[in-house]
């Protein structure tokens, strides 16, 4: 069970760390740039609702979907075991767990990246500015994002389960299954994000 999760996490983890850190650094460099291209109040809103809110859940869910389907389409042994019903539980569990762990890594990397970006942008005096970004921040935002990621993880697991059922009925059609699962998965992720956005308005 853990081997599959560990295998998925290897790719997704690196993606989360690099993309999160990069996004944090880029955001901070723009936010504290001397040209004042980003209004401070808009910058704080973006920090709270985009960098630590929508971006991690959206990117992590999309990457996990891609990674899992890619693994299934290229690993014939895994497809055979899933067809035989030997690793269904591990596959579904790995999807959900990787989503949550990669989301946490993305979140932590974005925090570290934003801190580094501000320290770099303000020549080592970025700590105070970085702390000021937390004045308006509410913990409910993180909890909300966590619940959204949990929902996305559950939906991706369900999709993986449906995918395995499809595979068991149509053996050898992994590429057809992958394209359908990708389309459904992307629609699912966008649907959840958009619904959540309008729900929070």
């Amino acid at each position, binding site marked *: 069970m853990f081997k599959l999760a560990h*295998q998925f*996490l290897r790719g997704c*983890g690196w993606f989360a760390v690099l993309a999160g850190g990069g996004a944090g650094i880029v955001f901070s460099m723009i936010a504290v740039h001397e040209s004042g291209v980003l209004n401070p109040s808009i910058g704080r809103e973006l920090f709270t609702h985009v960098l630590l809110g929508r971006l991690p859940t959206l990117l992590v869910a999309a990457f996990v979907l891609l990674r899992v389907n890619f693994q299934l389409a290229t690993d014939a042994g895994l497809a055979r075991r899933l067809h035989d019903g030997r690793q269904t539980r591990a596959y579904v569990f790995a999807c959900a767990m990787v989503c949550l762990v990669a989301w946490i*890594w993305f979140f932590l990397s974005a925090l570290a990246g934003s801190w580094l970006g501000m320290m770099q942008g303000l020549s080592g005096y970025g700590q105070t500015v970085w702390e000021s970004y*937390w004045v308006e921040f509410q*913990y409910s935002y993180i909890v909300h994002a966590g619940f959204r990621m949990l929902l996305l993880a559950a939906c991706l697991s369900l999709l993986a389960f449906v995918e395995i059922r499809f595979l068991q009925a149509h053996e050898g059609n992994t590429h057809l299954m992958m394209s359908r699962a990708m389309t459904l998965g992307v629609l699912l992720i966008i649907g959840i994000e958009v619904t959540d956005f309008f729900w929070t308005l």
Partner: protein
Amino acid sequence: MSSPKNTSGLRLRWQLLLTLVALSLVMFYLASLKGAWETRLTLEFETDTAVSLHEGMKVNYKGFQIGKLSRLGLSPEGVVNGQVQIREAYAAFMTEGAVLKVTKDKIVTAELTLIRDESQHQRLSEHARIAILREDMAADLAKRIDPLLVKFQLLLNQISDPKDGIRANLKQSHKVMAKTVEVLEQSTLAMKALSDSQNGLPAVLGQTRDTMNALQPTAAQATSTLKELETSLVQTRKTLDTADRLIHNMDGALQDVQTAPIYRWLVPKRNPETK
């Protein structure tokens, strides 16, 4: 020796554990940054209505958030009561005579703003009562409009100023316009004189054109004469060149004759001592 499956499981467990520890540490740090574990001064209040009040509402002082409204409730007696919590670092601002005013500087949300009585320095104790002050809409509107009215009055004063006001400016403009009309009249007269058909600019231009027409054959004649002169000059130059060469030849011949022996025999060289 452990199998690869066990190694993966162990690694994953370690990764999960480290992830949770890192997340907890970050959350703990952020919570301490927001003052989650510091002691807070709790104050009670009662008010007529809970309109514009809500739990979690900010308490501000000079633009800084110093606390928040932590509880709001309606008692069985129909009294709205509540509680505000002030952060430890700002508790010293909560002195006797201080009130919390419901302000609506932003369009949507309202805030509680601390209004202090600067003459009093006695700090409020834990669970002390603090008054909630509301500004009625008319007073608020009057307060916002008042600076505008003052500025409008100033503008009216400037307009009615006898030296720099609109009247003075209009007088000056009138004078300038009268002068301009005068100049324009003079310009019209000058233009009329210029456009007179007998002595004006058209007649002068006509005469000039006639003169130029009359001068044209003369100029053509002068041009042909100059061309002929040029030809004569070329011939003269050639003749002069020929004469020059002739003189040179003559000179050479003369020297030859003078140096000839028969000439020396007839005309001996003059002795320099006989001078």
